[in-house]
């Protein structure tokens, strides 16, 4: 791993998963590279393999074939704990379903990745980031006490508090109404720009995709349009 390595480099990635009806090929040789600070939208119909691509790129899943390099580190060479360590402080995720920890308050949720990374100032940092997303007053609230839009803003604060170099967002506005979606999108693009992180975002929304530097279109497990690799 070198400091000059691009945040993400995927070569001929394949993913085949077992199912009751036999193995299913989900990704069929995907190449994708993301440069530092670059913003990439992954678009395509449901079932085209967008979320699976994110899972492999973030090291949540092992590819069946091909090479996935995260900051120059081959993910295949790491076990699950090794991949978790690699993500710490560098890679964050935002999900369509928010996925906040239900028994932690908003502040604890934001602090959690910092605490896992051993940051002793996790509490003040979390409070500052909640302030940035406009939820300073809700820091002691639990997820079930927050609206969908508020939950996604907490998730965004949690993802960015560690100032990662790469943010994955899997349909971040998919569960939100238009007004909340707009707030979250503005925040996300502003904050990502501010910390200089690269962004890989899965979305069905053409307007949202249009705000990125580059669009990659997937279909049937392949990249069918857009610049596949830089």
């Amino acid at each position: 791993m070198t400091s000059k390595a691009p945040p993400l480099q995927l070569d001929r990635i394949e993913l085949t998963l077992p199912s009751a009806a036999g193995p299913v090929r989900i990704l069929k040789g995907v190449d994708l590279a993301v440069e530092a600070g670059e913003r990439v939208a992954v678009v395509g119909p449901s079932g085209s393999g967008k979320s699976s691509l994110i899972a492999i790129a973030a090291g949540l899943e092992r590819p069946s074939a091909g090479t996935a390099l995260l900051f120059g580190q081959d993910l295949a060479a790491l076990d699950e704990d090794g991949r978790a360590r690699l993500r710490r402080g560098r890679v964050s995720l935002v999900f369509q379903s928010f996925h906040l920890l239900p028994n932690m308050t908003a502040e604890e949720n934001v602090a959690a990745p910092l605490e896992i990374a051993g940051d002793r100032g996790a509490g003040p940092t979390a409070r500052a980031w909640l302030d940035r997303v406009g939820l300073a007053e809700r820091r002691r609230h639990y997820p079930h006490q927050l609206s969908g839009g508020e939950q996604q803003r907490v998730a965004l604060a949690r993802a960015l508090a560690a100032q990662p170099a790469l943010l994955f967002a899997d349909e971040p506005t998919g569960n939100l109404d238009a007004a909340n979606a707009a707030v979250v999108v503005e925040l996300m693009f502003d904050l990502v720009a501010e910390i200089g992180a690269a962004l890989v975002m899965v979305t069905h929304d053409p307007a949202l995709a249009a705000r990125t530097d580059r669009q990659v279109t997937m279909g049937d497990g392949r990249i069918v349009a857009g610049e596949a690799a830089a």
Partner: protein
Amino acid sequence: MTPLSFRFALRELRGGVHGFRIFLACLALGVAAIAAASSTAEAFRRGLSSQAREILGGDLALSVEQRGFTPKEQAVFARAGRVVYSAGAHAMAQAPSGDRRLVEIRGVGAGYPLAGQVTLEGAPDLGHALAPSSDGVAGAAVEPALLDRLRLKLGDRFLIGNSSFIARAILAGEPDRIGRGFALGPRVLTSLAAVQATGLIDPGSLHAETARIALPASSQLGPAIKAIRDALPGDDLLVRDRSDAAPGARRLIDRLEYFLGFIGLASLLAGGLGVFGAVQAYLETRKTSIAVLKALGAEGPLVRNLYLIQIAVLAGLGVVIGLGVGAAAPLLLGLIAKTRLPIPALFAVYPLPLAKAALFGLLSAAAFSLEPLARARATPPASLLRQNLGGRVGFSLETVGAVLAGLGLAGLTLVTAPTVLMASLMIAGVAIALGLLWLLGWVAVWTASRVRGRTRGALRLGLANLAGPRSAARTATPAIGLGVALLSAVVLIQSSLLDQVRAVAPKTAPAVVFTEIPGDRTAAFDRAVGAVLGALRSDRYQRFVFVTGRITALKGRPVDRKMIREDQRWAYDNDLSLSTIGPEPASAGIVSGAWWPAAYAGPPEVAMEEKAASAGGLKVGDSLTLSVLGRDVTARIAVLRKVDWGGFGPDFALILDPAALAGAPLRSVAIARMSKPQEVALTRALGQDFPAVNVISVREQLEGAAALFDRLALAIRGAAGVAALAGLLVLAGSVAAGAGARAREAATLKVLGAARGQILLAYMVEYGAVGLIAGVAGVALGGAAAWPVVIKVFEARWVVDWSGVASLVAGAAFLTGGGGLLAALHALARRPAPVLRSD
């Protein structure tokens, strides 16, 4: 700073213990059962030991049978401390009406009791109760059963032998009663002089005399016993001391503790499935959180420790609740029943039994929690993006821990058991039963998944649920099955033993046993019996010479009791019944060797019961020395025989050839089969010519045993029911764990047009099947456990209590089906729209 896993665990625990109620209940139930059993046993042990002097009647008790103490012995005892003599025998009491009844008469000397108090009703103290009347008739304190049977009241007179007594007080309690054991008839307490006057304790007659000694405060137990032994070398004294005043009661407490503790352990294991299910269900709800933590950079050990801490805290809470209940139960028993308990007890909170129960509880929690934890730790973070991803469990710290905890449970069971063999059999039995039931649960799931395609409607839905991932069959079947297995084993053993006492024994055993038949009047006795029974055929009447003796040496060496296993020592611990028989009897039961010739007159030969011989390492040809009627007889073992104890024949541990005891004043016993009216008539008739012959009604003893069995049956079944309760808790856990999914399923079915009745029926099919499978398999396993106990241990006839078995199967199916009904009603009670919206 608190470690991260602790901080995260505390945050999780803030959410409450909602998902852990069944976990807590299962753990607390098992721990409470073990703690209560051990604490109660400890209370009885302490009670016995605190009253050891009273129970023994002094510091030392020295007994002889069929003879009195010699002046030399009396002098030695007097040097040791303050001595009180007593003598007891069985004898017939006769009312003026002619009614007769076997009693246990005991005469006590001045100064009795050396320790404790005699409890009397109708007289101010023992002195007044036993004092002779103005015309010289001895006073006696008698048990109420004698007054009832002979239709007497206090102040009436009755005869024992040819001596007259006045029933002056009701004997409510003697301090040394537990130490003296079981009585064949009501007890009569009188003065030693009065008993001596009856002739019942003349040398050679069947009686026992005891000297109880209160040692001076300066005197130690061990040296005192040694001094007596040294002064009376080779004496046949049976010596007991206050350190083990009631060995029978102590053994009973040990076995009771183990039996109840075993039920506690079984419920802990059955409840362990509830622990397993609860942890699994809880971690299932935490799957997303685990995946999120991993996505945020958490490693496996952090995830494991975070949930391990939670489980440990909750296990600790469950154990504390169990210990609280377990410690309180004996205290409550003490408050309610202290005065009615047959054994003295000191109820208190004892730390050691509680520590043992806590250790059992924690090991069980570890054994059943760690595997689901390993599975949760292995949850892949990709499950955030795709549902139904399970973690693969391989070799891990958690699985090693679970195996070690399981071995620890087995080890602790072995260490705390009275015998390793019994514990091993029980552990193996429970493990095999649980394994088979678990397998059966899986077979039920597999079968349901194969069969459902051929069914329709509610049945299909029920079978689909049975085959589904949340099927109750996997956890509830083994748990309920184990409870039913324990209950049915108890029911089947009890029904076989009760049948033995009520049906088999009255047919095979004699109805009446006669003892103390004078050796010179046997022919006259036979005639007296024949006058009532008619012709005396050997299948209705048999008479044998009877004497008691003790084995003093084996193969020329004094008996070393320590070399003989405690559970086989009976033949060497007590005086044995023995007889002399010339020609080989019809039911001799010879296993090896050959009976002596009918007119044999050579060196003494003996026929010995095979198990007693094996315990002493004896075989045919070895020599055996007996102390009989004050003399030593060394005999060659000619025969080893199997004795049909309680059957209609010579059930003696030892039978000598007649020449061995030639010239000795021998009495006889006789056994007879007869109807109840014949028994009454003969008992009255013998009062005229044979007042000293004791008539023991075996029928009455069997009726008493059957009544005792009935009283115990409910208590024992109640105790075994604790394990069944654990099974029901597991069922409740399974119902609760699936409640959310069931509500969604019911809502979807309603949307699709299913009627409430169809949904109810589907749930009844699923849970009823689980109950039926668990019930039938539990009864089969219980039967498999009970059969060898009935046939091999009790040597009784195998009798199945079909109504009991049917009610167990029906009960299991009904209760489990009821659980399904509750699950269905809960699911149906929720309106579809909110349920589906929240999905």
